[in-house]
């Protein structure tokens, strides 16, 4: 379309691109600042005013964090919850999405049941009480079962399965296969891209689990990394939060809380950054699929 552009329009296009570059840099700045501050030394952080590039790169903050039993344990807990909840959620979502993608008895009723949860939430307290009554409080299951199926993922997954050509499943039916065979032998193998996409989405929300951990888990030894992160960075209790299990105690000067906080955030964000390219490949498709029906 360049050939139709007048000089004014070319200028407008240039300004547009410059503005987008500025927006992108503003978006990136917190990441950049997080990285450099996490490698800044105590003396430089305290003495300098504005640090945009550390004179000396040090690993003090990382050593301090990784020497803390509570932080390492919270990472372990979070990895466990992320893996188990992703698998659990995928299985439940895929099975239900397949049943709803077929002409199941009462399909409209079941679909209404799912869609209604979009516009009417049960509320924090009754949900809390149900989780209490089902004895999930203070167990990892409280972070896995109550969020097992995301209604939105379920609907989009169902639409994906409906787009699989009917001929494939009908042939299997004629050969005497039942719905279980069709699901495991035909639908699941064809759903690999969808499984990957929803798996990533579930994994990200598992890794970011915060609110439910705060609500349902009182035992600090079962806290997820996000809960510990809040304690370190937002409540400014870095030294107490990270003191447990430290062999050398706190005799030597710990790094400043800001650099510890930034290092902790960076460690907790690395998994997201690693899966981000894969996520990006899938999410535009997922969102578009969903927007077809609104």
């Amino acid at each position: 379309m360049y050939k139709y552009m007048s000089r004014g329009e070319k200028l407008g296009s240039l300004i547009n691109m410059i503005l987008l570059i500025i927006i992108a840099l503003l978006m990136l700045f917190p990441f950049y600042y997080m990285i450099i501050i996490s490698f800044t030394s105590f003396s430089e952080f305290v003495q300098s005013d504005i640090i945009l590039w550390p004179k000396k790169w040090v690993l003090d903050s990382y050593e301090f964090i990784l020497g803390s039993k509570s932080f390492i344990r919270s990472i372990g807990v979070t990895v466990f919850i992320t893996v188990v909840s992703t698998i659990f959620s995928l299985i439940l979502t895929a099975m239900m999405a397949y049943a709803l993608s077929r002409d199941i008895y009462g399909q409209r009723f079941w679909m209404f049941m799912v869609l209604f949860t979009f516009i009417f939430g049960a509320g924090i307290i009754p949900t809390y009480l149900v989780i209490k009554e089902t004895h999930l409080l203070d167990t990892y299951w409280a972070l896995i079962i109550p969020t097992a199926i995301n209604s939105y993922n379920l609907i989009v997954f169902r639409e994906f399965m409906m787009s699989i050509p009917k001929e494939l499943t009908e042939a299997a039916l004629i050969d005497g296969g039942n719905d279980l065979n069709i699901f495991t032998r035909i639908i699941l193998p064809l759903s690999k891209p969808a499984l990957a996409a929803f798996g990533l989405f579930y994994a990200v929300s598992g890794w970011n689990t915060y609110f439910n951990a705060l609500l349902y888990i009182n035992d600090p030894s079962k806290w997820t990394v996000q809960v510990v992160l809040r304690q370190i960075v937002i409540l400014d209790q870095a030294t107490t939060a990270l003191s447990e299990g430290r062999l050398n105690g706190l005799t030597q000067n710990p790094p400043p809380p800001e650099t510890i906080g930034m290092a902790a955030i960076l460690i907790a964000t690395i998994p997201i950054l690693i899966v981000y390219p894969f996520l990006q490949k899938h999410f535009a498709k997922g969102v578009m699929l969903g927007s077809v029906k609104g």
Partner: protein
Amino acid sequence: MLKTENTLTPGELGLPKPGRYRKTAFKRIWKERYLFLLMLPGLIYFIVYRYVPMLGNIIAFQDFNVFKGFLHSDWVGFKHFQKIFEDPEVLQVLWNTILLSFLQIVFAFPISIILALMLNEVRNEGFKRVVQSIVYLPHFLSWVVVVGLVTVLLKSDGIVNQFLQQAFGMESIPFMQSPGWFMPLIVLEVIWKESGWGTIIFLAALSGVNPDLYEAAVVDGANRWRQIWHITLPAIRSTIVILLILRLGSVLDVGFEQIFLMLNPFNKEVGEVLDTFVYFKGVQQSDFSFATAVGLFKSLVGLILVVGANRLAKRFGEQGIY
């Protein structure tokens, strides 16, 4: 011997016998037993963790006592709902919620549209993809990370205050403690985290626009602005309407995690919203019934607004969400 018409049973005509519907339903479920088997775990999940809590809202009409349970606690009718409108604290919280929601719709929502329009004007695909990758990223971070970054950036001796001091000679501003900064910060954080992600749905709608329309507009002498005004914006109008309907339905939902993380004793007065209020009252102070009443009130208002907004949208000839 041929059967006469009136000896045919309804079954022979392919019709279910009166009173046999239950049996045919059962037959069909049996025929589809494997499908039901596959759906069963999900069904149990929805019933136990989505619908039983919905029924659990009945404790809003009780003086719920943990030891007496859901069914045997004392019924008190609308006592707790009456309290919602008499308690000045709840009214303050309700006002905070509505104001914050309003600010988000007015300031954060249009930014996604503007950003999508800007991205749509970029002709260089590579450049566009790089910018998109950067602006989508914050969506995947947790609120703890976002509020944590903001906390460090905005400390009294943090980089923002240092910059303001050196560039403009300003006094250090206690951003996180000042009640006046609470809402602007919440809105700015939402813009940083979600405005890029919000463009996806608009860009998807825009990708469906027929390029011939632009060509025709150019032939008719329309410049870039007129093309945006007459082609691009109408193309995303129904998307905007649908998103606004959904947004209205969650007008009392302003994001528990973010606000909870931003709250501290200094900004509680202006920052407490319905969700955090329910959390403090119910979970921390165990005032279950009153907290549930506030939560139920919130959900009902959301439901009414979605249904109302959807009707209104349809009356104006838009598609609506159902």
